């Protein structure tokens, strides 16, 4: 049942089209991530949902409510949308105590003072902040400040929670911890999350579905598993996980590594001329007999993983193997077998 709906949403800044004809349906209670490189329009999309940006085309609905519509020049202002939102730079108010930060949205809603107190304490409790309620947020660490921001967003018990890179100001260890906290909070409160990040592992870990964007255009919307195993195009393939791209050429119904006479096993649709094979370093096996012949030019230990650079014809491939798998030495000739190669048109 789709809850948040974006129809043909477009936003331009001068000559830059930040978001281009975006159609999107997000289910109630879903955790939906927007993923993409810097400047691809994630924040702009989120800010349009929040109401901070007007649209250049399209409409935004949440449930039965129309929130933004270019054609009718109709915009519900951000303060009337009843969303929770968390920003990258914490944005907690240093002149108010932790308690007052969290109580702020409740006080604006003309609730009884008992109810304000109860709901503030509830939000503080679920974010483990009760013991610092009367402190200034400036005395908290980055993680603490971000919890205050979360608690403040939770306090009104919103149906939709907008998160714009909420964890990217934190150090890596804390980041992983907070992911689970956000997930737990969602389970408890049941809100719908729209989550912006450029960190693919964060998106994979948190989300029910991921949208990958590039230059304001949607590339793929699917579950983390499908985005990884069935990337819609070369860009998605390269953006999620590690990737090898090998230029290949078809000739006489055979597919060669470009610039060599090495033949690749090919089972896709019929193609001619130049195109590209995409493989993941972890999905290449070394085989003693047959396979694509290559030479080990560099071997690097990355803890549990051994990273090889293999020269195939004039090109290089990365292969990653477990610490306990077969070990090859630099200079050795090996055979490569590709588990799930993808084939894309050449650029």
């Amino acid at each position, binding site marked *: 049942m789709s809850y948040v709906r974006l129809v043909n949403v477009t936003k331009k800044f001068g000559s830059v089209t930040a978001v281009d004809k975006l159609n999107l349906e997000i289910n109630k209670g879903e955790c939906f991530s927007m993923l993409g490189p810097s400047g691809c329009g994630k*924040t702009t999309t989120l800010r349009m949902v*929040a*109401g*901070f940006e007007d649209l250049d085309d399209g409409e935004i609905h949440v449930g039965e409510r129309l929130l933004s519509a270019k054609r009718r020049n109709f915009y519900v*202002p*951000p*303060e*009337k*949308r*009843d*969303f*929770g*939102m968390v*920003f*990258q*730079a914490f*944005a907690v*108010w*240093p*002149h108010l105590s932790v308690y007052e930060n969290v109580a*702020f*949205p409740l006080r*604006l*809603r003309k609730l009884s003072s008992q109810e304000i107190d109860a709901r503030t304490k509830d939000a503080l409790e679920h974010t483990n902040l009760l013991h610092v309620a009367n402190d200034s947020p*400036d005395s908290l660490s980055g993680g603490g400040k971000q919890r205050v*921001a979360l608690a*403040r*967003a939770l306090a*009104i018990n919103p149906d939709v929670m*907008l998160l714009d890179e909420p964890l990217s*100001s934190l150090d890596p260890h804390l980041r992983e911890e907070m992911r689970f906290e956000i997930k737990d909070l969602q389970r408890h409160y049941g809100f719908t999350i729209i989550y912006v990040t450029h960190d693919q592992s964060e998106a994979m870990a948190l989300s029910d579905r991921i949208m990958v964007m590039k230059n304001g255009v949607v590339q793929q919307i699917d579950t983390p598993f499908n985005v990884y195993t069935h990337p819609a195009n070369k860009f998605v393939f390269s953006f999620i996980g590690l990737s090898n791209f090998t230029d290949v050429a078809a000739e006489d119904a055979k597919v060669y590594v470009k610039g060599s006479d090495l033949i690749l096993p090919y089972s896709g649709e019929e193609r001619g001329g130049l195109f590209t094979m995409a493989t993941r370093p972890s999905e290449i096996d070394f085989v003693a007999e047959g396979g694509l012949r290559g030479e080990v030019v560099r071997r690097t230990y990355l803890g549990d993983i051994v990273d090889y650079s293999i020269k195939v014809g004039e090109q290089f491939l990365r292969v990653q193997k477990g610490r306990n798998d077969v070990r090859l030495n630099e200079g050795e000739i090996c055979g490569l077998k590709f588990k799930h190669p993808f084939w894309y048109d050449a650029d």
Partner: protein
Amino acid sequence: MPVMKRRSFGVPEMLLFLSVAILVIVVAVPVLLILYTSFFVDGHFNAGQVMSILSEPDIYEALLNSLFIASGTCIMSTFIGTLFAWLVVRTDLPYKGFMKTLFLVPFMLPSFIGAIAWKMLLSPRSGYINILLMDLFNLEEPVFDIYGYGGIMAIETMYLFPFVFIQVCGALERMDPTLEESARISGASLLTITRKITLPLMAPSIMSGALLIVLYSMAHFGTVAVLGMENGIFNIPVLIYEKIHQSAGSFDSIRAGTVMAAVLIVSAAFIIWLQNKVLSRGRYQIIAGKSFRPMEVKLRGLRIPLFIFCLAYIGFTIVLPTVTIFLVGGLSTYGVDITWENLSLDNYKFILFEWDLTRDAIWNSVSLGLGAAVITMFAGVMISYVIVKMQVRGKGILEFLGMLPFSVPGSVIALGVILAWSGKFGINLYNTVWIILVSYIARYMAFSLKANSAALEQVHDSLVEAARACGAGMGQALKDIVLPLVRPGMFAAFFLIFLPAMRELTVSIMLYAPTTRTIGVAIYTLNEDGETVLSAALAGIALIIIVTGQSVIKYFQNRKAG
């Protein structure tokens, strides 16, 4: 590890010693002499005498007036400065960038020239606006009277509000816009956000600007001197000037002067202390890391009216007085109608090429300005270098002394310099141009220290270390790495000193002799003597020099940036 041989007195110690010596001689000794003279009688501490001097009616009144005028000016400037800052940073006011530049123009205009211009416009008897309104509406009585507390506060506000404006603009621009956006998404309307989030977060900046205005207004001479005389309104600096001038150096009046100067020193120190406290208490971490365009408040129906209001404000406070000065400077006698027939360049020619008094004044100001700027610039580089970059024992003293120039008002410096350089220590510079030079150096040291430390702080230590690691000696590293990097600071310091020196009044008025008038003194005394048109013409020439200088700086700064 090789053990370094400890030198007990090397180059760093020598630089420190020199820096301390300069600050002690130029700033500390005059201030100490004032405090000593006011609290010690015949070598004995005597606080009772201080109290009895402070309770003399005229001194008491000057104190109250200083406080009253400073408070009024502070309130008005804070209100106007905050409003305009908010308008040009946070709203969709048209031509915001340009408006912001215009609001900073009063910074470079001398307020006593503004006061003279407003006197020409709004004096009850002969002010052009009053006459115009009386003619227009057939009134018997003039509408405005500039010669009162209201007039004085209004004129001071016109020239001082940029201190609040610039502080608040900076704070608003640096503020992380998501602080406001998160209030908005929490359900707060723009008005609530401004009240509950923006203003409280700005409070330290607003307060600090407001305190600066109290400091400057209490120590401000020109406006009160020009406009207060008529109704007998005077503040501390004006009374100090009168005491020193009229009583020809009698000890009693010098002592009365030093007691008042001591009051200024103490209040200045208190204000600076308070300002540091406000700023450090309220130094919230509100600086944006990665920022978007801040939220813009849509003024909607008020957009055009507010824009017109801003334009009118600029027209009234900048354009009108400036035009008045130039026009009156072209008249043959003050009071005749401003018509084409009555206007000529005769006064300007007379002032520039014929009259020794004004030619001397221009020459004095230019040479004093150049001399003070060059000396202070080099001294400032050295002192800032020791403070910012060097690790020497005893640097704390220098840091303390370096704070002094920021807080010593002009009339205090002038009086202190008189005490120190009138033969007490075997050197008598009184009535020479040198005493003015010494006082300019003391007065403008703060600017030089500020500009140079700002430039030096940008030079990371590792740059010098990298050069030395490459084999450059300390001297080589200074010459090739540090000097090019501090040049912008020195350049800025030069103009920050030269231009204000061209229009200086507070200090020079206390120190001038018949042949050592500066431009400011000449404009002021001509105006006092009723030579209104000549005074206006000279003021016009001063404005041209200042504006040209500003344009030169702008040109070089833009060229560096672009």
